[in-house]
């Protein structure tokens, strides 16, 4: 089933061409890695996709979108605000209920965040921890597709793999912008390469070597 479709998309920002003549369609079940230098247009492309599927997509933006004064629990719980009545959400804001805590804890644990940090303020945590909490929120949200903009840019290689495993387990369809080429190849089945706002490669991940992508990063 077709989830996203772009046809000759052009995006200009302050007179600068960010995306030029981009045509791309993505089916349900595909795991797409967007690769390319920073400024190549990956974030813009993700935004276009998000607008097409607002009701059914969870997103991990580059700025994470966390509410810093709130706890880890509340930030992850936020992914499901749409599933409950307002009064139920307010109760959980003031007094988190047992089974909601348990559900959030499962997700947080799967990302190897510490045991006892469920009620730490997000603002006090490190950049890598914050990034994993944003991923946890997107996983907790559920839905048809997850869109991630560099969701593992601030964590080490081992943790990156843990995070990407967890995302793969929770979502069938995934579109992730990544600059780490070997991770991109390991956790996707389709690689889309961008350069200066244009799609310059679009291939199955199987059979590709990291060196095949080098040309994207040359100036």
């Amino acid at each position, binding site marked *: 089933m077709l989830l996203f479709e772009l046809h000759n998309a052009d995006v200009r920002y302050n007179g600068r061409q960010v995306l030029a003549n981009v045509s791309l369609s993505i089916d349900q079940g595909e795991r797409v890695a967007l690769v390319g230098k920073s400024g190549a247009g990956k974030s813009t492309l993700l935004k276009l996709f998000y607008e097409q599927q607002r009701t059914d997509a969870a*997103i991990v*933006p580059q700025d994470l979108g966390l*509410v810093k*004064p*709130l706890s880890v629990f509340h930030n992850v719980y*936020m992914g499901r*605000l749409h599933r409950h009545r307002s009064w139920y*959400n307010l109760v959980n804001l003031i007094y988190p209920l047992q089974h909601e805590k348990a559900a959030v804890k499962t997700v947080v644990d799967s990302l190897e965040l510490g045991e006892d940090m469920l009620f730490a303020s997000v603002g006090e945590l490190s950049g890598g921890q914050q990034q994993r909490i944003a991923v946890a929120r997107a996983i907790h949200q559920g839905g048809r597709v997850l869109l991630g903009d560099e969701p593992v840019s601030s964590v080490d290689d081992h943790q990156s793999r843990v995070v990407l495993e967890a995302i793969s387990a929770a979502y069938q369809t995934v579109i992730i912008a990544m600059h780490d080429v070997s991770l991109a190849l390991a956790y996707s089945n389709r690689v889309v390469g961008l350069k200066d706002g244009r799609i310059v490669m679009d291939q199955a991940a199987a059979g590709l070597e990291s060196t095949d992508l080098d040309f994207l990063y040359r100036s």
Partner: protein
Amino acid sequence: MRVSLVFVVIALACLPFADLEITTLDPWREMGRLAWGVITPDFFATEHLLDALKNTLAFALLGVALANVLGFLLALVFHLRIVRVGCALVRAIHELFWALLFLQMFGLTPLTGILAIAIPYAGIIAKVYAEILEETDPAPLQVMPAGASLLSVFFFARLPEAWAHFKTYSLYRLECGLRSSAVLGFVGLPTLGFHLESAFRQGHYSEVSALLMLFYGVIATIRWWVRGRLIPLYIVGAVLVLPGGADIHIGNVVRFFTQDIVPHPLRVAETVDGVTLAALGDWLWRLLTTQALPGIVNTVLLTMIALVGAGILTLLLFPLISPKFFDRWGRGAGHVFLAIARSTPEYILAYILLQLWGPSMIPAIVALSLHNGAIIGHLIGRYTKELQLRPDSSTGVNRYAYEILPRVYPQFLAFLFYRWEVILRETAILGILGIHTLGFFVDSAFADIRFDRAVLLIAITACLNIAVDALSRTIRARLRLKSTPDQN
């Protein structure tokens, strides 16, 4: 710099027109007695001491709490023009004017005191809270799952970001509320000002100093005794200790709106015809020329002098608490002086000075300059802490003139222009003490039971305030003074 010079010239030009006489026969002897009272505070003079404190606290707590609730709700709909204009109007009217108005409706009841604080404060809080909400990080809103209710999104993604700022600001408002509550005593409510006035009249200066010292104690320790969890307890306590008062007659309220504030010529007229309108025009003309105009002139004169006075004092005072000029011990004394000067309401300062020097503009000028100079001096002094000087920079006067002053000057002007409107509002109110600013004519109109005049004069005062606020905003924008002072 040019702007500063223009303002100094304006203030100097105002001086010859101001009434600057010391009229008491022997001001030094009176000051000596007051000084003696200061060093011999008598905390057991009367049992009123605790009563005064208790009532001051109760009015402030309930007024500010109510203002917080109203202000928060109004902040949510602050994008509506009518709300913005309404808030600007209610906050342009001083607490004491509100108190005088509510006194006519509700009499000497707790409701008068609470509303006199709550109404203008709600207008201020609504504006500040709306600004805080506007400045919250918009990033979380982008990731909210589609279909989440507006209420849920507000409470999870916006309120938490604003909450800490709300808390800091409402604590500051409570401090202002305590000052306002104390001053309400001067129009008859049983707070600190009431007992201060009677102690002063009888020359019990030891009681005066005891009252003031207790008051400073309460304000200085506010950070320690205000705790989130204790606030509901305080509110209940405040309700319980509220003094009783006359009963509220709804008839008085109705009469106030339907008869008292209707301009006299209209009230006595049988029909609205040419004669009535002519009488109304005459009434209006006489009110404007004999009261409003001289009131406005004096208010503006005094405001301009006090504004420049506050500016000069700020520049003299801020080094006292700046680590760039004094060591720890030296700054300690500066902190105590500034804390006292900014914790004493202008009104009380002016009242005390008036007792010493007799009625003229001098007490008002000194009181306004001192209070506002201490507030801005405190902020600028704190601001100098962050400045980085090169290790071999000059010291003393050279450091002041070459290193510090040029760096803090834009900030200083921003704060000063911010206070302009506040100084004007206070200047108007000081008229109640007998200086011929707008407050004097308002107070006389109330005393003569001519509420129609009083209400019109208050409205004129409010408009003057809004005009100065707009002017100050224009100047700040023109000078590109960026400031987000935490006080306002």
